[in-house]
C-alpha cells in the first residue's frame, strides 16, 4: 500500500475513538462538552503531550527514556528557584536555563547509551534516580515561585479567546511533525529504529543522532517542567513521577511501536486526550481518585493488546474452526 495510506491507518482510529468518547461522555455528563471544561483539558494535557513527544522521539529509535519524570522535576524546581522574581531578567532566565539543563541531562543519557552502548532502560532508570536526588537536594519540599506574568501567560488566553496551552500544543505537535517528516534528523530516527545496521551502512551518523534524540527528549521534558511551574505557580520535586508511565502510555496509544521504526506524533493529541479524558470523566462522575490508577492501567493494556501483532494471531486462532483436519482422513 502507499505510504500515505500506511500513515493514515496509524492515527485515524485514534481520532475516531476520541470523537466517540466525546459524544458518549457528552451524553452522560453534559458538563463535559462545555468550553470551560475543554479549556481546562487543554491545560492539563499540555505536559502530557510534551512528554509524549519526548518519549515518541526516543522510542522511534528503538530506545526508551525513563528519566523523563526526573527531568521534569528537576527543571520544574529550577524554573521556580530562579532569582529576580517579577523582573524581565527572571523571565529570560526562566526561558533559557531549564531547557539548557534538560538538554544537557538528556545528552548525558545519550552519551552512555550511544558511546558506551549501554541498554537505555537501565541507563535512564539510573540517571533518573540521580536527577531525582539532585532535585530533592535543591528543593526538598514543594516551594519556589515564578514570575506572575509567566504564570498568567501560560494559563491565559491570546486575544482573550484562544487558550495559550492550545497554542503551545499546536506549535509543538506541528513542529514535531515537520521535523519527523521533512528533516534528515527525523527520517534518520525511523531508519535507526527500523534497523540500525542498515542505517549505519547508509551513512547515517548513528551515534550522534542517538545522543541528540535523548537531548531532544530532555528539552521537551524541560518544557513540560517549565509549563508546570507556570501553571502551579510553584514547584514540586516529585511532580514528574507519574509522567514516566504517562509518556509511554501516550506514545503507545498514539500508534508508535515500542520496538522502533514505526509511528509518529500525529496521534499524540488524540492519545493524550483519550488518556486524560478518562480521568476527567471519573472526576466528573465523582469516582474516587484511587480508581484512576486502575483505569490508567487498563487503558494502556488495551492499547498494548491492540498494537501487539501476537494478539491478533491468538484471537484469529481462537475463533477459527480447524475443520480441515476433521474432514480429511489421514493417509497412511
Amino acid at each position: 500500500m502507499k505510504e500515505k495510506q500506511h500513515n493514515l491507518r496509524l492515527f485515524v482510529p485514534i481520532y475516531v475513538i476520541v470523537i466517540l468518547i466525546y459524544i458518549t461522555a457528552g451524553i452522560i455528563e453534559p458538563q463535559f462538552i462545555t468550553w470551560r471544561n475543554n479549556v481546562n483539558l487543554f491545560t492539563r494535557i499540555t505536559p502530557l503531550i510534551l512528554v509524549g513527544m519526548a518519549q515518541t522521539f526516543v522510542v522511534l529509535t528503538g530506545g526508551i527514556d525513563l528519566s523523563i519524570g526526573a527531568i521534569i522535576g528537576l527543571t520544574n524546581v529550577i524554573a521556580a528557584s530562579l532569582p529576580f522574581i517579577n523582573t524581565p531578567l527572571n523571565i529570560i532566565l526562566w526561558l533559557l536555563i531549564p531547557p539548557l539543563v534538560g538538554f544537557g541531562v538528556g545528552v548525558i543519557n545519550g552519551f552512555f547509551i550511544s558511546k558506551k552502548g549501554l541498554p537505555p532502560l537501565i541507563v535512564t532508570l539510573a540517571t533518573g534516580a540521580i536527577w531525582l536526588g539532585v532535585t530533592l537536594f535543591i528543593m526538598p519540599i514543594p516551594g519556589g515561585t515564578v514570575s506572575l506574568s509567566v504564570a498568567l501567560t501560560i494559563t491565559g488566553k491570546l486575544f482573550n479567546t484562544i487558550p495559550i496551552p492550545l497554542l503551545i500544543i499546536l506549535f509543538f505537535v506541528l513542529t514535531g511533525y515537520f521535523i519527523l517528516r521533512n528533516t534528515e534528523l527525523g527520517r534518520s530516527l525511523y531508519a535507526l529504529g527500523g534497523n540500525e545496521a542498515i542505517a549505519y551502512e547508509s551513512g547515517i551518523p548513528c551515534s550522534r543522532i542517538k545522543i541528540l534524540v535523548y537531548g531532544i527528549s530532555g528539552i521537551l521534558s524541560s518544557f513540560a517542567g517549565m509549563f508546570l511551574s507556570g501553571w502551579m505557580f510553584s514547584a514540586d520535586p516529585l511532580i514528574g513521577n507519574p509522567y514516566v508511565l504517562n509518556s509511554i502510555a501516550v506514545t503507545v496509544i498514539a500508534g508508535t511501536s515500542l520496538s522502533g521504526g514505526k509511528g509518529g506524533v500525529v496521534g499524540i493529541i488524540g492519545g493524550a486526550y483519550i488518556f486524560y479524558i478518562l480521568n476527567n470523566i471519573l472526576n466528573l462522575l465523582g469516582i474516587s481518585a484511587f480508581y484512576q490508577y486502575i483505569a490508567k492501567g487498563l487503558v494502556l493494556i488495551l492499547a498494548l493488546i491492540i498494537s501487539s501483532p501476537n494478539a491478533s494471531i491468538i484471537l484469529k486462532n481462537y475463533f477459527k474452526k480447524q475443520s480441515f483436519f476433521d474432514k480429511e482422513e489421514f493417509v497412511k
Partner: protein
Amino acid sequence: MNAAILDKKTVLKMEGITKYFPGTLAVDNVNFMCNKGEVHGLVGENGAGKSTLMKILGGIYLPDKGKIIINNREKRFHNYAEARKFGIGIVYQELSLLPDLSVAENIFMGIWAKKGRIIDWNEIIKKSKEVLAEIDIKLDPEEIVGPLPVALKQMVEIAKVLTQNPEIIIFDEPTASLSSQEVSRLFNIIKKLKENNKAIIFISHRLKEVLNIADVITVMKDGKVVITEKKDYFTEDKLILSMVGREFSQIFPNKATSIDNKIAFSFHGFSEKYRSEVKLSVFRGEVLGIGGLRGQGQIELLQSIFGLGKETKVKVMLSDRLYTIKNPFQAIKSGITLIPEDRNTEGVFLILSVLQNIAASTVDERKNFGLIDRRREKEEVTSITNKLSIKIISLNQIANSLSGGNLQKLVLGKWLLTNPLVMVMLEPTKGVDIGTKQQIYKLIRELAEKGVAVIIHTSEMIELIGMCDRVLVMNKGFITADLKGKEITEEKIMKASISYVNILSEDKE
C-alpha cells in the same frame, strides 16, 4: 592466474588477499580481477570463500594480507560506506531495505535530496521514478516496501545501489528466489549495466545461469582460486569438477542402494499462507531433500513439522502412531528435531558453555528429583563431543569461541542426544568448512541407515543432488515433483521449480 582477459580497462584488482578466522583460513592468497563492461562470474561451494572475498571487497572485513586496487589506486576501506565512495555497490541476498518505509525513501536512504535543510520529497520521488525506469521497472515509489514480493524488493535494492553510481556492482546469489521470467528481467538489467561500462561480479550456485550471463568465470575452492577463464572454456561438468576437485562420489557417501517400502515418517499439513495441502512421507533408510526456489513454502513446511508453523496444529505419523504437534516441545517429545537455518540466533547459546549447549534439549531426561544429574550430563556430553570430533579445549568453554563448523556440530550433538526419530535440516552446511562438511554428510547417511527420517533443505544444488535419495520440489506452497534416484538433476529440479502442477491433486482419483 590465467591472463585470458582481453585488454579492456581493468577497474578492480585484488592481489594476494588472505583472511583468517578462528579455526580456518577462509581466503588464501587470492588474486581476482574485474574489467569494465564485463560480467565476472564467481562460483564455489559453501565455504569456498567467495562470500568472504566479497565481504572484504564490500568493506565488511579487513583482509589480513593483500591489496585492493581500484582504478590503479590502492584502497583500504573499513566499512561499506567507504567502499561505496570508491565505487563499489553490493546487492545482497538478504536485502538491506527498511520494510516500514517507502520505496523512494529506501532508495535514497541517507542521501535525501534537499532544499536547504528540508527534504525535498518531490525531487526524491521524481529521481526514484527515473532510476526505476532505467532498469525497466514499473513501481510506484510511494509504495511501502514491506508487502512487496521478493523480486520487486530486489529491484528496489538494485535501484538503491545504482543511485550511488558504482563502477563495480556485486550480485550475491540474486536469483535464488526468482522465477525464470524474473531472472530474464534481471539479466536484461545486467546487460544494460554492462553496456554502461559497469564491472559486474555475479555470484551464484546456479551454474547454468552463470554460464549464460558471465563473460569470465572464476572458481574458488577451499579459500583459493582454482581457475579463472573465459566463459567458453567451461562446461557445467568442468565447473563442478573445479568446484569440488574430485569426483562426486568422493565427497558424498554412497546413496542407499535399495529403499524398502516401510515408511519412517509421514506428514500432513495445510498451509495458511498458500492455501495448499501438503503430504509427504519418508521411507526408512532414505534421505529426503526439499528443493525449489527460495521462499516457496519449504521453510514454512519444515518448520511446521517441528511445531513452529503459523497454523496451530499439524499431524504426523511416526512408527505407526499419530501425533499432533503444536509446539517444539511436543515435536521433540515425539522424536522430531530441527536444525535451524541461522544457528547463531536459533541454534546455539553463544554466551553459554559447550556443555550447556549440548545438554539443552535433554535436561529433563537427566532429572533427579528436579535436580540436574551432573555426572550423567558430563558423561553423555563428552561421548557426543568425541563422536562428532568437536574441537574444544574444555566443556566449560564458551560457545562463541568456536568456529562455524564446530558450532554446527554443537547443534547436531544437542539433537543426537535426544535419540531422534526425525531430523529436519535447514542448510546443514551453511558457513561450515570443507572438512566438517564431509563429516556432516557422513553423519546424515549414517542416521538414515539407522532408520532416522532425514529431511534436508538446501539451496546448494550440488548437495541436493549428491546427498538425497529422493527430492521433492516445491513451488507456491505445494509439491510439484517427486524425483527419485537418477531423476535428480539440476534440469529437472529447475523445471519443477516453476511448474504449477500439484502432484498431490494428480494422485487423488
